[in-house]
């Protein structure tokens, strides 16, 4: 102790149980994206689930909005080190989209408008652990935060919560997505600090 950064005090302590290692709390809502923000009109929006056999099921915006909706509040953790507590979302649990889907897949790739992809074990999307959300804090989700709809997988680093999501592709093998191919951790558990390939 005392060998680094002499005279540094920092902010109030006491969030230790809510804050994963190496994160800091923020009130603002920073943005991490690799490129421009795609503009996706709800009139042409679709969401598709494709199985390993190529079978697919699709929903238009109105069909998605007609599914049972859930309000859900979570802490979110970005790999760029900010965490935001108690963020309120509204959307459809991923379980609802997979209800009638026959699959032997263990993995999923979330595909976004704009080409972004991210991979997850399928079980991380099931049993009320993930949602397709369209409303943040009572307002339609803004484009820079992934609107009109994004995936929400709050127990993993937030890049796994694919913005502008348009498809879930179910796969038998794990297929690294965009950030996972360029150096980010394949799974991304904030509590185990799985940021990069080295972790």
């Amino acid at each position, binding site marked *: *102790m*005392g*060998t*680094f*950064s*002499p*005279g*540094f*005090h*920092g*902010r109030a*302590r006491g969030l230790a149980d809510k804050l994963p*290692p*190496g994160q*800091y709390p923020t009130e*603002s809502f*920073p*943005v*991490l*994206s*690799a*490129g*421009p*923000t*795609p503009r996706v009109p709800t009139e042409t929006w679709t969401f598709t689930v494709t199985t390993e056999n190529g079978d697919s099921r699709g929903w238009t915006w109105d069909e998605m909005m007609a599914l049972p909706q859930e309000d859900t509040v979570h802490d979110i953790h970005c790999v*760029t*080190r900010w965490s935001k507590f108690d963020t309120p979302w509204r959307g459809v649990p991923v379980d609802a989209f997979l209800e009638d889907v026959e699959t032997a897949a263990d993995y999923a790739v979330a595909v976004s408008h*704009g*080409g972004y992809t991210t991979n997850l074990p399928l079980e991380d999307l099931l049993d009320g652990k993930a949602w397709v959300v369209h409303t943040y804090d009572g307002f339609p989700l803004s484009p*820079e935060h992934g609107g009109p709809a994004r995936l929400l997988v709050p127990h993993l680093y937030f890049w796994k919560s694919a913005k502008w999501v348009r498809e879930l592709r179910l796969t038998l093998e794990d297929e690294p997505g965009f*950030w996972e191919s*360029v*150096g*980010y951790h394949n799974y991304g558990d904030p509590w185990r*600090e799985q*940021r*990069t390939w*080295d*972790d």
Partner: protein
Amino acid sequence: MAADWRRAHLVERLPQTATARSLAFTVPGWPGHLAGQHVDVRLTGDDGYQAARSYSLAAPAEGERIELGVQAVADGEVSPYLADGLPVGADVEVRGPLGFWFVWRPEQTGPVLLVGGGSGVVPLTAMIRAHREAKSPSDFQLVYSVRTPEDFWYGDLLSEGADHLDVDVLYTRRAAPGSSRAPGRISADDLRGHVSRLAGAGTVFVCGPTAFVEAVSDHLVDLGRDSGSIRTERFG
């Protein structure tokens, strides 16, 4: 197991503006990095409390020496301490290099357009320095948005008119004397000529505060640039 933090020893601090500083550290065992990458910097208080933030590398590595550029943000936890509190000769910890997408490699020969707002110029400056060191033939343009002439970073480097580097400075609040453009936020018109000079090829790197990056990348798409050729880094 989290990847290793390395000890970084502050060897030099230079003012860039009234509130921005260049910091040079020596980092034993530094593995080298690509232009555009960043590090996470970690500070530790006397009681063991730690805080970490990301900072872009402002220059190609010179052996174990790395350079950062830090803008002190009012009420910030980390940036004011780095900018003015950390004594020269003291240590922090760094982790990196990080960032695997917002990078320019000297092997890339296509034309490059860099668009930076405020402290967003830091990783772009690393690219400009790497481009110059490599004597790269690729055409480099920098569009640099700052509030006033006093907010200009890296004055000697970015105004000197190096080969293959065109600098276009846009002032948002108060322009330099003799400047023909009225102060104002960056518009599609400001970018049009630069985009057409790329002739559809190459890469655009955009860096700065989120609102700036959003505005610029929207203009670029409106001007017909393919989204896949626009790489962004948002600082906040």
